[in-house]
């Protein structure tokens, strides 16, 4: 329950979205997400509610900075 799961938004109808989690689809409410959500976005879902959009650029930057900090090659 406390384990939020990231999923991809496949369809949006009003405040509900169809979100795909590694092959399984779920109906998820978007009512608690603060910003705009678009089809194709990744969202963090807890107990049927999306709580936030996952920022893919930020994910990439964090990894890059981490690799630099520990002295690993940064090119992928």
């Amino acid at each position: 329950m406390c384990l939020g799961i990231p999923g991809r938004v496949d369809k949006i109808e009003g405040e509900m979205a169809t979100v795909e989690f590694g092959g399984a689809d779920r109906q998820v409410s978007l009512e608690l997400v603060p910003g705009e959500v678009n089809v194709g976005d990744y969202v963090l879902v807890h107990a049927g509610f999306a709580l936030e959009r996952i920022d893919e650029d930020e994910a990439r930057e964090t990894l890059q900075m981490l690799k630099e900090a520990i002295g690993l090659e940064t090119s992928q």
Partner: protein
Amino acid sequence: MKHRSEYRNPLLAGAIADRINRISRKPCSFMEFCGGHTLTIARHGIGSMLSERINLLSGPGCPVCVTPMEEVDLMSALAGLPDVIVATYGDMLRVPGSKASLLERRAEGADVRVVYSSYDAVELAMSNPHRQVVFFGIGFETTAPATAAAVLKASSLGLENFSVISAHKTTPPIIAALLSSGEMRLDGLVCPGHVSVITGVAPYRQAAAQGVSCVITGFEPVDILQAVLMLVEQVEQGRSEVEIQYSRTVRDEGNPRALRIMERVFAPVASNWRGIGVVPGSGLEVREQYCAFNARNRFDITLPETDEPAGCICGRILRGAASPADCPLFAGRCTPTSPVGACMVSSEGACQAHFRFRGHARL
């Protein structure tokens, strides 16, 4: 999401662990507050990758584990009433009450339904107009807004057969209580990533001001190791700040929309934490304005006080003062198939996480 595999990359994880072990000088203790972190740490054997100068402690962040027995007894009493349907997240089903778990109640004929979302419980009320549906709201700031949204929905639909028992708890008061208990000395907090999606950095400011380094952390092995690296850097440089490792999902200000909904429906109250005791302001109760949806008002049930199971040291484990291996019942009388205490019931509980991954944790 292609970055997910990178956050699980064993080579990267190993390189971070090497770096941590190279730069760490001072012995330090870090507490992971969240049960989700406890699970990742146990599953991937993260403790064993780190130098023995670094001590990782589990905290009170498994909602199933800290829900006191009397709340389970209350739900179980409600489930025994005619024409009542109890709706709960699956995690609560097997938690022992003082007499029975909800699962055992169901085997005796009580109507206990597992729901995925609080809205499923509202729908259950709509499709069963002649019965009362009581939703068991448990969890921290990650699930409290969902319960609040269900109350608002039931209110706007004018539903007269839906109510909730709120056993929700909030993070800032318990962190303050743990830090002031003096039971252990903490150098850093591995702060809960998903709670922080809602709360932002605010709950940890006080801890940082008291000299405890804080890093808000995601749930993959690389997330946790990076957070430990950031904590060790803070400790070695004599800093105590709130930093966000999980910046792909957490913003400084949290989620204002969810916070607003939560605050509209709930007010802070004193709340009893299993094994820890009553912590002022750490619970959430339905506000007067929505009292028609508070099952505590709708049903008149008083229950006797409960005792924790004899021999179980969940309380000390939840306070970071002991680890599962210190419990004489661990893996003997107490196992996931026959749990004595709540920490063995939930997959996020420290006892179950340690039990499942004993000797075969891997990245």
